[in-house]
C-alpha cells in the first residue's frame, strides 16, 4: 500500500501527498470534475469571445438571463434524455411529443375548461400527454422488444402527425391569463422558466446520483444482462425511464406555451437532436452506463451561449450550424481521449 510507483503520473505539487492514494489526482481529473472542467473552460472561452466581439450587448445580466431562459426548454428535455441515454437507449420523439402536448394543452376546449376551473388544468393535460407518449414508447421498447431508435422514430413521426391533425396546422393562441401570468413571471428577479429548469435539473441530479432509480438506470446502461441476472426488473425500469422522458417533454411544452404564448404542431422540431447533442457533449456515454446531469446542463448552456454570441454579432445561422457541428465533434473526440486514459481511474 505504501509504494505504488506504477501510478506516478505528474501530479500537481502537494496534491499527491495529501491523499493516501497517489492516484487521487488522476481519479479527479479522469472523473466528473475533470470532464466538467473541460466544459466549464469551453463556456468561459465562449463568454470571452462574446464579450470581446459584442461587448456590453453580450456581457450584461439581462443577456445572461436571456441565454439561460432560451436554454431552459431544451434543458428540461435534455435532463430526461440524460436518463434515456444513460440506460443505453435513445428517444427521438421528445421534440414532437412536446409539440403534441403543447397543441393538446392549448386546445380551445381545454383552455375554456381551464378558464372555468384553474390554469393548472393546462399543466395537467400537457403532462398527461407527455406521460402517455412516454409510456407507449417504453412499453413498445421493453415488452415489444423493438429497438429504442425505431420505436421512438415511429413516435416522432406519429406524434407530429397527430399534433397536425388535432390543430389543423393552425397556431393556437394561449389566452388563459392566469397561466401566462404564472409562467411568464419573474421570481426574485429570475424568470419562472429558469426556476423550472433549475428545479428539474436538481431533481434529475438527485434521482440519477442518489436514488435506487438512478442506480438501476446506470446498471442497465452498463450491462442490461448482468442487471437482469442480479434480479433487477429491467423491462419495468425501462418503461419508467421513457415515461420520465415523456414527462420532461410535457414540462417543456408548458414552458414553451408560456414563452411563445401559443401552441403549435411545429413546436420542438429537431429538439431531439439538440438534446442528444447537449447530453453527449456533456459527457454522458452514448452507449450507456455513465450519465452526468451537471454535464448535460453545461452542454445545454454551451449551445445556448453559442447561439447568443452569433445572434449578437448578427452572424448567419448557417455559420452557427457549422460551429455547432465542430463543437460536437471536438467534444466527442475529447471524451474518447478521456475515456481511454481515465479508464482505470474512472469514478463518477
Amino acid at each position, binding site marked *: 500500500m505504501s509504494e505504488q510507483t506504477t501510478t506516478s503520473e505528474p501530479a500537481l505539487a502537494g496534491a499527491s501527498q495529501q491523499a493516501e492514494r497517489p492516484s487521487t489526482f488522476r481519479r479527479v481529473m479522469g472523473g466528473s470534475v475533470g470532464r466538467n472542467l473541460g466544459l466549464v473552460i469551453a463556456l468561459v472561452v465562449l463568454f470571452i469571445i462574446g464579450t470581446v466581439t459584442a461587448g456590453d450587448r453580450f456581457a450584461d445580466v439581462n443577456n445572461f438571463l436571456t441565454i439561460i431562459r432560451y436554454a431552459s426548454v431544451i434543458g428540461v428535455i435534455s435532463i430526461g434524455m440524460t436518463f434515456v441515454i444513460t440506460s443505453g437507449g435513445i428517444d427521438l420523439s421528445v421534440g414532437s411529443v412536446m409539440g403534441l402536448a403543447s397543441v393538446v394543452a392549448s386546445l380551445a376546449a381545454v383552455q375554456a375548461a381551464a378558464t372555468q376551473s384553474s390554469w393548472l388544468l393546462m399543466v395537467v393535460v400537457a403532462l398527461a400527454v407527455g406521460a402517455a407518449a412516454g409510456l407507449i414508447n417504453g412499453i413498445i421498447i421493453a415488452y415489444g422488444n423493438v429497438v429504442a431508435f425505431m420505436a421512438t422514430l415511429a413516435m416522432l413521426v406519429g406524434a407530429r402527425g397527430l399534433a397536425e391533425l388535432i390543430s389543423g396546422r393552425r397556431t393556437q393562441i394561449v389566452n388563459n391569463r392566469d397561466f401566462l401570468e404564472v409562467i411568464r413571471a419573474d421570481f426574485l428577479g429570475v424568470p419562472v422558466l429558469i426556476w423550472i429548469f433549475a428545479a428539474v435539473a436538481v431533481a434529475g441530479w438527485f434521482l440519477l446520483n442518489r*436514488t*435506487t432509480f438512478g*442506480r438501476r438506470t446506470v*446498471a442497465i446502461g*452498463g*450491462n442490461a444482462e*448482468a442487471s437482469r*441476472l442480479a*434480479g433487477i426488473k429491467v423491462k419495468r425500469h425501462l418503461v419508467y425511464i421513457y415515461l420520465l422522458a415523456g414527462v420532461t417533454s410535457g414540462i417543456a411544452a408548458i414552458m414553451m406555451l408560456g414563452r411563445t404564448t401559443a401552441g403549435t404542431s411545429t413546436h420542438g422540431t429537431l429538439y431531439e437532436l439538440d438534446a442528444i447533442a447537449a447530453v453527449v457533449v456533456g459527457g454522458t456515454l452514448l452507449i450507456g*452506463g455513465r450519465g452526468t446531469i451537471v454535464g448535460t446542463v453545461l452542454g445545454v448552456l454551451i449551445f445556448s451561449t453559442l447561439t447568443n454570441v452569433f445572434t449578437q454579432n448578427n452572424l448567419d445561422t448557417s455559420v452557427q450550424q457549422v460551429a455547432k457541428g465542430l463543437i460536437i465533434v471536438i467534444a466527442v473526440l475529447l471524451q474518447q481521449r478521456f475515456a481511454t486514459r481515465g479508464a482505470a481511474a474512472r469514478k463518477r
Partner: protein
Amino acid sequence: MINDDHAVLLEVRGITKAFAGVQALKGVDLTVRPGEVHCVLGQNGAGKSTLIKTLSGVHAPDDGEIVWQGQTVTIADPVAALDLGIATMYQELDVVDGLTIAENIFLGHERSTGGMLRVGEANRLTRELLSRLGHGNIPATTEVSQLSAANKQIVSMARALSRDTKLIIMDEPSAVLDSGEVANLFRVIRELTAQGIAVVYISHRLEEIRQIGDRISVIKDGRSTASGLSVADTSTADLIRLMTGRDVANVFPPATPVAPNAPVLLDVQDLHLRGAFSDVSFTVRAGEIVGLAGLVGSGRTEILETIYGARKATSGTVSIDGRTLAAGSVAAAVRAGMGFSPEERKSQGLLLDEPIFKNVTLSTFGRFARGGVLNERGERDAAKEQIAALELRPDDPDRPARTLSGGNQQKILLARWLVHGTKVLLLDEPTRGVDVGARAEIYALIRRLAAAGTAIVVVSSEIEEVLGLSDRVLVIGDGEVLTTTNASDIDESGVLDLVLKGSAA
C-alpha cells in the same frame, strides 16, 4: 516428432517490453525446435500475450534478441512475421465471417491473374490443405460464418499452412472448445508437427499441456522462470510453483458430510424446457454441493438458467425452502433467496466500469436504501466486509471491476450473493478464466459457503472440477439426466462413458 535434438528454429533471448511505465516483459527466453509443441505457461497477466505479440510483429521489443533460423531478425509488423513463416492463431479468430473458407485462406495473397481471381485453383488448394489437416470433408466453398469455433480454428491453421509457415503460435485455442473438439484440435496439431511445423501452445490448463506438449517454458510476472523443460520429467506441483511462486495444494478441499436431516433448500421437479432438456428432477440440501456434469450442448447451462428463472420453463416446478417460484422470473428467484453466477462473467455478471462495491451490491442496493435514497456508505461497508472475508484483491472497494483478475471478479459475484444472504447458489463455470493459483482459493470458498449451510449447484466443462467439488453429481447428456450418483463413486472416464453412450443411443 523432434527431427534433430539440436536444431533450433526460434530463439528468444532476454526480451523486455514496457507500456506506459508498466513493465510487461522483464526478460523472457524461449527456444523452439522444429516439429515440437512448445507450451508456454503462465498466469493471467504474466506476459504471455505480450510475448506472442512481439513474436507476431504487433509490438516491437524494447530490448533482447530474436534469432530465427540462426539469424537475428527484427519483426517490424505482422506481415514481416508471416513472411518469416510465423503465423499466429489468436483467441478471437481473425477469420472473416462473410467469406468462404477458400477466400479466407488466400486473403491477402489471392490466387489471381491480372486481377482476375483463379477461384477454381484456390478451392482446389484449400481442399488439399483441409485434407492435410484431416478435414477434407468440409467443402472449400462453405461460408465461414456457418462454421463452429473449432472449424474456424481449422481454417486459421489451413491459412498458416498455405503460407509455408514454420511456426504457429496458438493463444489458448482450447478456451472456446468442448472436450471432443479439443481432442480433434490435438490430432490436427500432431498432423502439423509431423510435417515439421513447430507449435507454440499457450495455455493455463495443465492437463492439456500434459497431453499435447513436448517441452514447457514458464513465465511469471514478465520473467522466464523456466525454459525448455521436458513435459514428461516435470511434475505438476513444480509447474504450479514456477507459475505462482508458491506451493499450491492442487487438490479440492475435503467435503464435509451433509447431515441427513439437513433441510432440502432447492427442489426441482420434472423441469422441462422445450428444445433443451426434459424431466430434470433433483433436490439439494443445506450444505450440499450438487454438480451437473456433461459436455457443451448437453443442456447443463440451460438447466441452471431455467432454475434461476432466466429462461421460462415449459413445465415443471422449482421450489426454494418449500415455496414454489413463479416460472421465468429472476426477480422472484432472487427474492426467494437464490443467487446465480453466470458462465460469461464479464458480459453477464459485472458492470465492468463500476467500482467493486457497486458490483457487490448490485442485487441488494435497494435493501440498503431508505425510501429510494441510496446509502452508499452502507453499501461500501458491506462490500469491504466481504472483500476482507474473501481476500479479494485489490481491497479497494472503489476500483473498477474491469481492472481485476478473473479470480477476483469471480469473488465479486460470490460476495454479491453473500451480502444477499443467498440460500441456494447456482454456479456456472466458477473457474473459467481463473488461473491455477486462484482456483484452489475459489474451490475453498465454495466449500466454505456450503459448510455455512448454503445449497450449491455447480456446472463446469471440466469434469474433474465437478467431481472434485461436488457431493453428488448428475450426469447430463442430450438434455436428460443419465444418472445421479455420489461424486466419490464415479470418475472422469465413468462420466465420459455415460455421456458418450447416451449420445450414441
